[in-house]
């Protein structure tokens, strides 16, 4: 790890999701040296947890595969996983960045042969599946994970299972003595592509996510649809494991709300339109989707998807922010209470499953991180000359869809290049 070479003409990209990968690749493909760091064991970020993208209904892993191939083919990018920034000093064109790298307990010798995963018995909540399923203590985070290298859960260290994992590895790839490392890098520019996290649905008390099993979030639905996911690609009710065919989608769950996130998360409406196609994909005309919304924000060509969805007889729209959800004790159906504001109709609607179109929240609290960045009241990075050689990319700058995040990441790569090119000119 410590052989990482960086100079003040190196660009550091923080975050290995779609934005970070894009920023790193675009800069490297311009011939720049890039270090890409990711706090999780693999690249991919949130998009790796999505089943499909709107509006084309293509699979995020398809674009991931291309990006991974670009990374594999490019020797200008150095990737550090399980790495986090702890401190940044210096100025534009000459930053000193302290990183900590958590132990993976598995070395580059790993062939991902899966022997350790088979041997270990202890299981933990699977983060990749938002805890909807368990994974082994020695694991490959997901099938497309890159680096294609197993990880040993730190909670396994010191147990007999850890020794078992080590003993079955034929390739001397497990090192249980691995320690946290610290590393200081000298870089010229920094791109923050730290992305988002789903808003904590438990905080929306009235929707009962914490107490009504058949209220789930949109990100969980994405996992359910994945054939390798917790339900094997089926939309199943957590209460009884039965298929849910009548599904309510609640917009602005946590967004556009001064109690939670004040901003509009932009993607949720179109994501829900996409979700209705999931329902159709599973059940055809048998499925039923009901969308409770304030405004359907399907801008520019996403309007086509909205138009198509409106024409789908299995989908209905109700202009209403749902007031609260209760549960039918016998059927475990969530019951939605509220008012359709178009013409004032009161409703009490039971559905088999409720999907909260959960808002996007910046995943890093930059103020707490102590980095001198211009952060707005929503927690997003704003471009400001005082940021020096540091730039936001993707959802670290605003609630964005993938296309816009990649656009922003590409722009940030140029901004970083401008800084390191100036350094290069100054140094001759």
């Amino acid at each position, binding site marked *: 790890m410590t052989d990482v070479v960086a100079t003040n003409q190196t660009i550091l990209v923080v975050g290995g999701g779609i934005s970070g990968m894009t920023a790193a690749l675009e800069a490297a493909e311009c011939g720049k040296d890039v270090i890409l760091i990711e706090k999780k064991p693999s690249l991919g970020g949130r998009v790796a947890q999505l089943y499909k993208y709107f509006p084309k209904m293509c699979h995020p892993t398809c674009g991931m595969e291309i990006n991974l191939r670009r990374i594999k083919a490019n020797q200008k990018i150095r990737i550090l996983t399980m790495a986090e920034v702890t401190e940044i000093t210096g100025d534009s064109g000459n930053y000193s960045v302290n990183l900590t790298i958590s132990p993976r307990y598995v070395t580059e010798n790993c062939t991902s042969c899966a022997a350790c995963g088979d041997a270990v018995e202890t299981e933990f909540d699977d983060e990749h599946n938002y805890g909807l399923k368990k994974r082994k203590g020695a694991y490959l985070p997901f099938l497309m994970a890159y680096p294609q290298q197993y990880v040993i859960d730190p909670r396994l260290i010191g147990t007999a299972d850890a020794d078992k994992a080590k003993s079955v590895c034929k390739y001397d790839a497990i090192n249980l003595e691995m320690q946290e490392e610290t590393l200081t890098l000298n870089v010229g520019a920094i791109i923050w592509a730290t992305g988002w996290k789903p808003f904590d649905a438990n905080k929306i008390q*009235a929707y009962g996510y914490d107490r009504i099993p058949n209220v789930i979030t949109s990100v969980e639905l994405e996992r359910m649809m994945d054939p390798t996911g917790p339900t094997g690609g089926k939309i199943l009710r957590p209460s009884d494991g039965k298929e849910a065919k009548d599904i309510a989608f609640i917009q602005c769950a946590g967004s556009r709300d001064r*109690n939670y996130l004040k901003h509009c998360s932009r993607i949720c409406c179109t994501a829900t339109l996409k979700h209705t196609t999931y329902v159709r994909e599973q059940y055809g005309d048998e499925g039923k989707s009901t969308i409770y919304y304030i405004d359907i924000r399907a801008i520019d060509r996403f309007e086509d998807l909205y138009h198509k969805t409106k024409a789908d007889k299995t989908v209905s729209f109700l202009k*209403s922010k749902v*007031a609260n959800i209760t549960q039918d004790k016998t059927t475990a159906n969530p019951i939605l209470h*509220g*008012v359709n*504001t178009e013409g*004032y109709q*009161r409703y009490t609607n039971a559905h088999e499953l409720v999907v909260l179109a959960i808002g996007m929240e910046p995943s890093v609290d930059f103020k707490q991180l102590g980095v001198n960045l211009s952060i707005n009241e929503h927690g997003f990075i704003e471009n400001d000359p005082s940021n020096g050689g540091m730039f936001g990319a993707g959802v670290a700058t605003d609630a964005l869809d993938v296309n816009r995040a990649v656009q922003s990441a590409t722009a940030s790569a140029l901004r970083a290049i401008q800084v390191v090119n100036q350094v290069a000119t100054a140094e001759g």
Partner: protein
Amino acid sequence: MSEQYRNNFLREVEANVEEGEWVKRCMQCGVCSGSCPLGPHWEHPPQELFMMIRAGKRDEVLKSSSMWMCTSCYNCIARCPRELPITHIMHGLAHYAERLGLAPKNQQTNKFAQRFWNNLSKTGRVNELKLTLSFYFMNGFMAGVKMSLNMQKVGLGMLLSKRLNPFEILGGHGCKDSKGLQAILKKAREIEDAKIAKFQG
């Protein structure tokens, strides 16, 4: 006169109704209307009232019994994504309608509220015994007798546990300077009337 979809009435509400300046912030999500425990009893739920205010429906709003349904449970305020103090606006609207003489005359909440106010403003303190009796007999003598009989046990219990002083019926006690209070209330009314007058005619 308030014209449709002009902002005269909205401005009138902003000037004269408690927290009225918040009305324009409503984004018509309807969470207030859905959250109200008395919801089904509202002819126009809060979010609709706000839209009606913006649409200049002055008479329909002020003559409505809807805002009199509010029991101050604060569900709507807690859930409003736009921070509107809906409960207060409802009371503000009700109060304003009453001041203008537009409030529905036989509306129970209104009637009680009027009695409460009369009782309170006379001496500066609420005379609970008189208030209770006036409430019982609010809808006529027979109804009052019936209600009193119904509440007999409660009343006796309160009497025994000294929670009710029967001598309050003779007048009871007031605040220290009830004349001063009357002057304050008079002045306040003058100010409010002047404000309202701006929007009359």
